[in-house]
């Protein structure tokens, strides 16, 4: 295998000296308004070369890929030139483009959950690609294909017998992405375009899929255009990196050069915003009070178990599916406890139980002396007090704010609700004479937004700004515990930092955080203690630094190893 990788590119390069893909002055603009999404970029990929297009959302990176493959959404038009293996693609008709896609260029998209047809088996997906692009003369018979499909699946590491007969819903996200990859490369394309191929996957699966792409790319000396928001993934995988911003390429270099000496301010900014996992950046740290084992914790969860299922399943022998299995944790005043784990580990279920949005099957949750395990059974005063004490910041800032109302309305409503809930004596009532508008302005200032934003509706804000409004809404209750459920997972790197700073400021003011994240680098910076969840069980917990520097459990070690380092060795 390794011999092939060294010889084949040379042979190919000998045969065909021109670039595999040569994009010149590519412009993608709106047909109606003329606004440019991609503003005249040049891009060249040689045979067997790997190039990354890195940028944040809205930078135009995905539209570049779509323009190259002729898959622009309605209303957008492309200009300039795209040469692929000697053919001009922009001028090619639909028919010719179809031949190029699949045969010449393979496409791998972000979301493995919607990319495969749910009514079609894994094997059929691949067979379909094989069949549709064969010339009529040598269309292979059915028996041939079964064997070939198995070969193709084996190439992407799916070797279990019968895998080809499985439907997408029977496969995990990583497996689906492998099937998609097998289908994308079934016709041995000379170029693979992978658009955020691992963004929707768990970190450990991400590494496996990236390794697979790397190996296949080397084996076949295939060109690769990787589109990603993650600089470190690009560093590990690619020969050349192009950094895109607002439709332009602002930096182009090999990984080593780019890391050492980025030419543009933007790239420098991106590199600086990247959080390290192995140490804490001093500018984000907080002097948290030390752990005091004797103190009464502000939030204490003991033996929390949650089962999901229908009433009959819950009564049956398996008792439904187990999302949380005897989880316990303590959060003391002013501390920050992180909960880390992959998707399906029960992190979010735990948060929802604490917030009373989900009813635990057994176990107890105590907040400042109030047993809130079942919000419905609380007295009105206790319920109001508990609601005020514990507030939440949700993951998706695009749906956690009501699109129908202005920020002033959203914040004023929360402020009035706090007053209705009454003061509980623990909270100084100093601000309660403040008039609503003044308090709205102060809340916006707390999260770093200008006062005049109060008139806006959520649609007029970017994702990061929305998330800060969501934090302001939570703060309007003057909570002592802030449950943050992946608060920065949906945000771009440069925006993440702003939101984390807002949360850090709140920590500095003594608000305790229950911080749920899959990102260990974020956990390193935002938490004092860590709880590692795996399939609903706590497998390890302790001081954040201890857990991350000296993981005692296999699973924690696996999670740590899956964090991209930016070194090529990470994918070796």
């Amino acid at each position, binding site marked *: 295998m390794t011999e092939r990788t060294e010889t084949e590119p040379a042979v190919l390069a000998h045969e065909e000296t021109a670039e595999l893909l040569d994009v010149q002055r590519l412009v993608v603009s709106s047909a109606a308004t003329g606004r440019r999404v991609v503003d005249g970029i040049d891009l060249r990929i040689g045979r067997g070369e790997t190039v990354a297009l890195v940028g944040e959302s*809205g930078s135009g990176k995905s539209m570049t890929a779509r323009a190259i493959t002729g898959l622009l959404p309605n209303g957008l038009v492309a200009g300039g030139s795209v040469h692929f293996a000697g053919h001009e693609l922009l001028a090619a008709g639909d028919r010719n483009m179809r031949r190029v896609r699949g045969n010449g260029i393979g496409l791998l998209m972000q979301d493995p959950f919607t990319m495969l047809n749910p009514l079609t088996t894994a094997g059929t997906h691949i067979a379909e690609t094989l069949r549709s692009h064969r010339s009529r003369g040598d269309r292979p018979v059915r028996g041939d294909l079964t064997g070939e499909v198995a070969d193709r699946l084996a190439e992407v590491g799916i070797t279990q017998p019968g895998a080809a007969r499985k439907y997408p819903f029977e496969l995990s996200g990583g497996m689906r992405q492998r099937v998609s990859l097998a289908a994308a490369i079934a016709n041995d394309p000379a170029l693979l375009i992978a658009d955020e191929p691992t963004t929707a996957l768990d970190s450990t699966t991400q590494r496996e899929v990236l390794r697979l792409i790397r190996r296949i790319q080397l084996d076949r000396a295939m060109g690769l255009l990787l589109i990603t928001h993650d600089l470190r993934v690009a560093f590990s995988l690619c020969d050349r990196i192009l950094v895109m911003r607002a439709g332009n390429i602002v930096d182009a270099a090999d990984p080593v050069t780019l890391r050492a000496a980025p030419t543009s301010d933007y790239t420098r900014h991106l590199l600086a915003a990247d959080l390290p996992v192995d140490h804490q950046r001093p500018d984000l740290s907080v002097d948290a009070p030390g752990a005091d084992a004797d103190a009464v914790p502000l939030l204490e969860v003991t033996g929390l178990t949650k089962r999901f299922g229908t009433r009959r399943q819950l009564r049956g022998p398996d008792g439904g599916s187990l999302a949380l299995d005897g989880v316990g944790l303590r959060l003391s005043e002013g501390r920050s406890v992180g909960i880390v784990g992959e998707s399906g580990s029960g992190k979010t279920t735990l948060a929802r139980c604490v917030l009373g949005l989900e009813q635990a099957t057994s176990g107890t949750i105590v907040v400042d002396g109030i047993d809130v395990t079942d919000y419905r059974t609380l007295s009105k005063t206790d319920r109001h007090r508990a609601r005020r004490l514990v507030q939440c910041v949700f993951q*998706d800032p695009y749906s956690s704010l009501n699109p*129908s109302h202005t920020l002033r309305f959203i914040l004023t409503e929360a402020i009035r609700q706090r007053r209705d809930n009454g003061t509980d004596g623990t909270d100084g009532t100093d601000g309660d004479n403040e008039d609503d508008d003044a308090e709205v302005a102060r809340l916006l200032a707390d999260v770093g937004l200008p006062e005049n934003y109060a008139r806006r509706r959520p*649609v007029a804000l970017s994702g990061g700004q929305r998330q800060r409004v969501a934090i302001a*809404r939570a703060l309007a209750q003057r909570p002592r515990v802030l449950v943050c459920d992946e608060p920065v997972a949906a945000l771009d790197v440069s925006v993440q930092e702003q939101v984390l700073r807002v949360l850090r400021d709140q920590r500095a003011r003594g608000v305790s955080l229950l911080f749920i994240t899959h990102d260990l680098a974020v956990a390193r910076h935002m938490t004092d203690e860590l709880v590692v969840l795996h399939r609903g069980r706590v497998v390890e917990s302790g001081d954040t630094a201890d857990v991350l520097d000296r993981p005692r459990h296999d699973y924690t070690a696996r999670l740590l190893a899956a964090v991209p380092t930016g070194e090529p060795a990470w994918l070796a």
Partner: protein
Amino acid sequence: MSEQVNPVLLRTGGPRLGVAVPVCAVLAAVIAVAAVAGRWLAPHDPGVQDLLNASTGPSATHWLGTDDFGRDVLSRVLDGAGSSLLGPVVAALGATLLGLLLGLMAGFLGGAFEAVIMRGVDLLYALPALLVLIVLVGMFGGGYWAAVGILIVLSTPGSTRIIRSAVLGQRTLPYVEAAHTVGLPRHRIMIVHVAPNVLPTVVATLLLDFVAALVALSALSFLGLGLPPGSTNWGRMLAENRTLLELNPWAAIAPALLIMIAAMSVTIIGDWLHGRLERGRLDHD
């Protein structure tokens, strides 16, 4: 300010204005003006008979000719616009408001509310509305407004179902959960947070209900139920003037055409408006 590009803004597949929508808007506006001011716009008194000039075709004095009593057809359709459209408007408003209330309660509160409301809805839904309407009005009389009342009851299940499903789509969104965690009472979340977000569906339901009610009430009037003879209701006029098809076809075609145009233009506008409102909620305002 470094704004991110909202991916929604890039999607340009929103509803096109095209030709149909403006044309329908103009037609609907003309009909609306006639409904409000038809009585005063009418060139002749709609009730005055002129038996010497009965059943004549269109002429300079009578643009749409006269009916078999010699009454001016144009004046009569103008006069009848208000009474023909008011009933459907009331029926649609009633059914949609009831549907909104029940749909919100069933969708948002769930539990026993939902069970009771939705089973009731299923029950009413199983009845053939027009048939029930004809039988009830025919048997018990009660006139036009009784028919409108029955129509409200019969069309509420449809609006309830549609609005409930829109509410179900909103109920699990994080902004609703956020409102719960802030501690807002349920009725406030339902009315202040969920209701505005199902508005596009409500508007579409309102317009579709209007069209259904217009057709149903016109049919009822056509059958002679609910309204006295000689009334200028379009359905009634269509029924009475169908015998004149050979002498002055316009006496029958005009009211028929108006019912059709009113129904069609409102349907098309409703469809477009729904798409626009849905999109407007996501886009910049």
